């Protein structure tokens, strides 16, 4: 079995897993919001360029993105990037591809009449996007965003291969100390599960609270 110190090590790994996932999710969501608005644009050029962005980052494995950034950045810019920064950039880009599609669908779920009445008041596009459409889109985006966050927490384990000591890599380290393969990975799996399950429950709770007034289904 693991001793107490080894268990603490796993928790430290979990902490890094959560840090990279949440930071990547936040940064990826901000990029995703911008790309999502571009994806929902009527202009075919803007729509297609943003579509290419999504296809690239959603359509290639996170592991490959990690390798490209880990080995590519030092060649391009002649400096070494830490494992944390590499993992952060990769998780952010990967997440932004998914979140762009989540926000695109959420923006398109809002009635066109909201745009029309905002335009009719002479409001400029940035005000309409940020103050009229985005607050409503965020509510719609919440349940699928929770799904993406769970995906990111699990997929962030891939960052272990570039030497980022999140939960999975920490499990490898502890296993090497204890020679007890099954126990370590079982505990790591349980930690992943507890976190993802808690987030899932929190998502359900928020969905019920926020979705209570069914804002996008009724005319106002």
């Amino acid at each position, binding site marked *: 079995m693991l001793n107490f110190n080894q268990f603490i090590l796993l928790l430290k790994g979990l902490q890094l897993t959560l840090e990279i996932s949440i930071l990547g999710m936040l940064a990826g969501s901000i990029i995703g919001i911008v790309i999502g608005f571009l994806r929902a644009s009527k202009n075919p050029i803007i729509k297609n360029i943003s579509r290419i962005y999504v296809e690239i980052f959603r359509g290639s494995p996170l592991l490959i993105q990690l390798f490209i950034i880990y080995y590519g950045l030092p060649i391009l810019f002649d400096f070494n990037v830490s494992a944390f920064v590499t993992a952060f950039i990769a998780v952010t880009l990967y997440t932004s591809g998914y979140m762009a599609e989540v926000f695109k669908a959420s923006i398109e779920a809002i009635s066109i009449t*909201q745009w*029309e009445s905002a*335009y*009719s*008041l002479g409001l*400029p596009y940035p005000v309409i996007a940020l103050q*009229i459409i985005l607050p*409503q889109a965020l509510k719609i985006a919440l349940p699928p965003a929770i799904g993406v966050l769970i995906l990111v927490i699990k997929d962030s384990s891939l960052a272990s291969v570039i030497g980022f000591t999140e939960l999975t890599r920490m499990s490898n380290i502890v296993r090497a100390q204890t020679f007890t393969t099954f126990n370590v990975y079982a505990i790591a799996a349980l930690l992943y599960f507890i976190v993802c399950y808690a987030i899932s429950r929190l998502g359900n709770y928020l969905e019920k609270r926020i979705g209570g007034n069914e804002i996008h289904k009724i005319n*106002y």
Partner: protein
Amino acid sequence: MVAQGKEMEIMVKARNVHKWFGKNHVLQGINFEVKKRETVVICGPSGSGKSTFIRTFNGLEPIQKGELIVAGYNVHSRTTSLHKLREEVGLVFQHFNLFPHLTVLDNITLALRKSKHMKKNDAEEIAYKFLNRVKLAEKAKSYPSSLSGGQRQRVAIVRGLAMNPKIMLFDEPTSALDPELIGDVLNLMEELSNEGITMVVITHELGFAERAADRVAFFNEGKIIEEGETKKMIYDPDNARTRKFMGQIGLK
């Protein structure tokens, strides 16, 4: 100078306006004029293009051919600022289209602050003035979901009025309301008409038309097939199609 002065008195001038949705020729050469302080009612069967027509007034629907001058702006011209035009043209929708995530007060002040760049206090002062007028000041901090349909539509109307537009457009403002809620909205519109606000109203409420409208224009299949003084249009129109329609919707 005199001619120019007279020109200023014309709030809407449409000349040979055409619009197509794909192959569908929805506006087929419309000529229409509204003078300052006039109230004009537009009616006609659904799908006749009347709603599309007034949505061209603020550039919500582009036109493909013809000339359209609204509140002094050439709507069809590429150099026209649609933002400036839209500050001068209030549009009230059938389904209110309030912003559900903003309070009644913020619904009204947002455009004052972000389009007209007013200070928050000044914008709120104007909003309360109008909310008091429609007896909804106590709802200022409420969200639209807690208002009745009639209250929502009155908020939507004062949201437009607060911008101090040169002309107000109404696109079937009472069609989505329960019958018992229509009266408040129509009374408000009648008051506005009496105060000399220039209005174009799409409605089938002929009682309102009779009390408030200077003229009625009848739309059919993308054209204005008859236009005239209100009483004559309601009780004795010349065109057989108009007569049939007026007979069908009847006067309450």
